[in-house]
Each structure stands twice: as C-alpha cells, then as structure tokens.
C-alpha cells in the first residue's frame, strides 16, 4: 500500500488549550479512513491541519512525500513551506465542510468552475464539461443555474462535494459533512460519498454517523482529548469495541 498522507508527532494548541497532542497518522492511497470521537477531541483540527487550514505548532505533515510543514530543531517546531507552494501541494486535496461554504454570489455551475478556471487555468468550455458531469453524478444537473440559497441543505452539500471534485483532487477530506443537515437529508449526501468510495477515492472523513462509518471505512480512528486512543477495522472499533472509553462513547452517540 502506498502512503499518501503522513503526519508525525503533530501538536496544536489554541491559546492554552492543547487540542492535538502528538498525533501520528498515515493514510494510504485508496484508503477510506473515518475519524470518530467526542466533540472537542481534536478530530476536525487534525483534518484541517492536513490542508493547512490550521497551522500545527509542532510536528510534520506531508502529502505524497512532499512536506507542507516539517518538524525542525530540538523541540520539533513546524516549519512551513511558502504559502504558494503549500497551495500547489494542497490542490491534491479536496475539502467538504460542515457548513458547505458555497459561494452565495455565484450560481451552482459558477461555484464548480471558479477554481478550475481561475486556479488551474482550465479552458472554460472544458471546466463546464467537467462541472456538468459532476452535477450529473450528484444528481443536480437541473440546478446548475440556481443560487445556493435556493437549495436545500442536502443539495448544497452535494454541490459542495461536486465543487471539490471539480479540481480533480486525489484525496477528499470531509469535515462532518452531514452534521448541519436535517435527518431526512443526510442519506442523499452519504449516498454520494459512498459512490466515491466505490471509485476508490482516498478519503478522510470526520463523522458522527456511526452506521455510515461502519459501512464505508477501511479503518476507523477513535480520538479523545487530542490523542488517537485506538484504531482498527470498523469491525474492531464499531462492532466489537473493547476499550471501555470507546464503549462509553459509542453508547452515547448511537
């Protein structure tokens, strides 16, 4: 298995609150990794460190062998590359947010082609072609002219997934993609993610949907208080959990 994300001894504090306490983690190409844990456990922060939305204090992060931040010196302080280089490396990662973060002043199709045209310098025609293909994939081809505020939460999140895919990333990061949705809209979003799983997209998913995590994951990580407490197959972590802390957590969420 080929390693594509590698994180070593990652530490991160917000003021005096230490949210990541020495995380070691690697993700393989084609792997579907879900991260579970109580709120405040640092799972979103860990995910956001992968594409430089958060800056780690100490430790290293590399994408496919290229460091975006590298631990240096005795204390292992993270030294980052230039912003420009990081942007280029992180183009290989797509991200889907809890709150969608669609661009409200742009129509659905404009949301999809913005980055391919402006960042990748793709021809508009080609970008439109890819965008429509993706809208078809997420079942929203008829909404290309709509504005985000005209869509339901589930539709917004499907557009957000399509927008991330339009940059043709190799890895997709999902930060609680269904947490802001009404219960009846969760299914349609999970369906799209499942479809990506079938295509063997590398994915790191932070989620509270345990059934979904069980069905889709190759590996599940349980985090608590800034540490990876345990990890393993969905079978080991979600179906037959042995650690009492994990059992307590699962009893609370299911």
């Amino acid at each position, binding site marked *: 298995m080929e390693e594509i994300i590698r994180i070593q001894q990652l530490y991160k504090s917000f003021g005096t609150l230490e949210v990541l306490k020495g995380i070691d983690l690697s993700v393989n190409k084609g792997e579907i990794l879900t991260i579970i844990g109580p709120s405040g456990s640092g799972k979103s922060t860990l995910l956001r460190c992968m*594409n*430089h*939305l958060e800056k780690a204090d100490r430790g290293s992060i590399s994408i496919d062998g290229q460091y975006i931040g590298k631990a240096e010196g005795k204390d292992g302080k993270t030294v980052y590359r230039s*912003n*420009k280089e990081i*942007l*280029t490396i*992180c*183009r290989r*990662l*797509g*991200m889907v*947010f809890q*709150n969608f*973060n*669609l*661009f*409200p*002043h742009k129509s659905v199709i404009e949301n999809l082609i*913005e*980055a391919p045209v*402006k*960042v*990748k310098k793709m021809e508009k025609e080609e970008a439109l072609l890819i965008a429509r293909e993706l809208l078809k994939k997420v079942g929203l081809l008829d909404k290309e002219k709509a*504005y*985000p*505020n005209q869509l339901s939460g589930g539709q917004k999140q499907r557009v*957000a997934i399509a*927008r*991330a895919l339009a*940059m043709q990333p190799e890895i997709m990061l999902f930060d609680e993609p269904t947490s802001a949705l009404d219960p009846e809209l969760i299914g349609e979003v999970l369906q799209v993610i499942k479809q990506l799983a079938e295509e063997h997209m590398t994915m790191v998913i932070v989620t509270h949907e345990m059934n979904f995590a069980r069905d889709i994951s190759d590996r599940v990580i349980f985090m608590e208080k800034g540490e990876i407490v345990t990890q393993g197959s969905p079978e080991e972590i979600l179906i037959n959990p042995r650690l009492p802390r994990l059992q307590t957590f699962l009893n609370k969420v299911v």
Partner: protein
Amino acid sequence: MEHLNYIMEITPYILEGAVFSIQIYVVTMLFAIPLGMLCALGKLVHFKPLRWLLEAYTWVFRGTPLLLQLFFVYYGLPFVPVIGVEFSREMAAFVTFILNYGAYFTEIFRAGIQSIDKGQYEAAKALGMSYPRTMCSIIIPQAIKVIVPPLGNEAVTLIKDTALCSVIAIPEMLKNAKAVVARDAAVSGYIIAAVAYLAMTFVIINIFKYIEKRLSYYDK
C-alpha cells in the same frame, strides 16, 4: 407674475453653483471609493506599521470637522514646513473631500469585508485560491452587497457637504444662493437651492436603490 420673473432671473445664477457641487461630487466619488477600498484592504494586512498609519489616517479625518480640514488645507497648508503646498481653491476642495470621504469609505469597506464569513476564505483556500484571488473573486464581490447601503448614505451626505466649500469662497450653490438672499433681502434664493439639493439627492438615492436591486439576485 412679478415673483415668477424674479425666480426666473435668479435661478440660473444659483444653478451655476450646482455645477461645481456636481463636479466635486463626481471627483470625490471617483477617487475616494478606490482609496477607501485600498485602505480597507491595507487595514486587514498583518503588517503592523501600515495598519497604524491607516488607523491614524481614518482617525484624523473622521475625528475632526470637515470644515476645519477645508480651512487647514486651503489656508494652513501653505505655511506648513516641508510638505507645504498651495492649492487652488478647487484643488484644495478636491483633496480635502477625497481624503475625508476616503476615510469614511475605508471604515465602511473594512466592516463590509469583515462581515464575510470565515468559511468563505477557507473554502477558497481549500480550492487552491491565493489570498489576492480570494479577495477579488470571492470576498469583495460579496462585501459590495453589504457595503452599498451605507455607501448610499454617505453619497447623500456628500452632496450636502459640498455646501461647505463656500467657506473657502468657491462659488458653489449655497454661496450663490446666499449672495442673492443678501442682495434682495428675500428668501426665495434659499428655497431654490433647497429644491436643487433635493433634486440631486433624489437622483442619488435612486441610483443606489437601483444598484441594491441589481445586487439582490442572491441571498446569503
């Protein structure tokens, strides 16, 4: 009938002053808007000395009367060592108004830009957009929608503030109206000026209403 003749006689003279009012209005808007936008972006940069400089600029120009600034630029500036320059009356008015309104616009634009959700920056960054690209394509276009109503408010104030130029003896509308009133001891001159100001603000208000309507094609 006699009264109507009198009004017909004094109106052109008063409206001549309006030409200057409109002139300074257009020049101020044309330069103060880009100035305000640049200063607003400068205030968001992490480079502290620049922020302090801009903070001082907006403080001085928003913290003192426009009237005082006009006096100072026209009468005072020639006596200031090193930077002392002598402007013509019109030029002094242009410079003062641009700097004064630029300061207000800076704050309006800064507030507008800062009202945009952090998630928009994050989404843009996750898509590989650089900071300048994010500002141009994502943040500023959304900020404009927030900025237009308070900008419209300032735009109305500006047309009335042009009357202050009379203090440096520029023959703008109020000064001409005052001259007529003083000569004839009749208030008609003031009424004509008032109607002209109302007409101008009416146009401005409707231009901004139109812009707001154009921007209402989306909602947050």
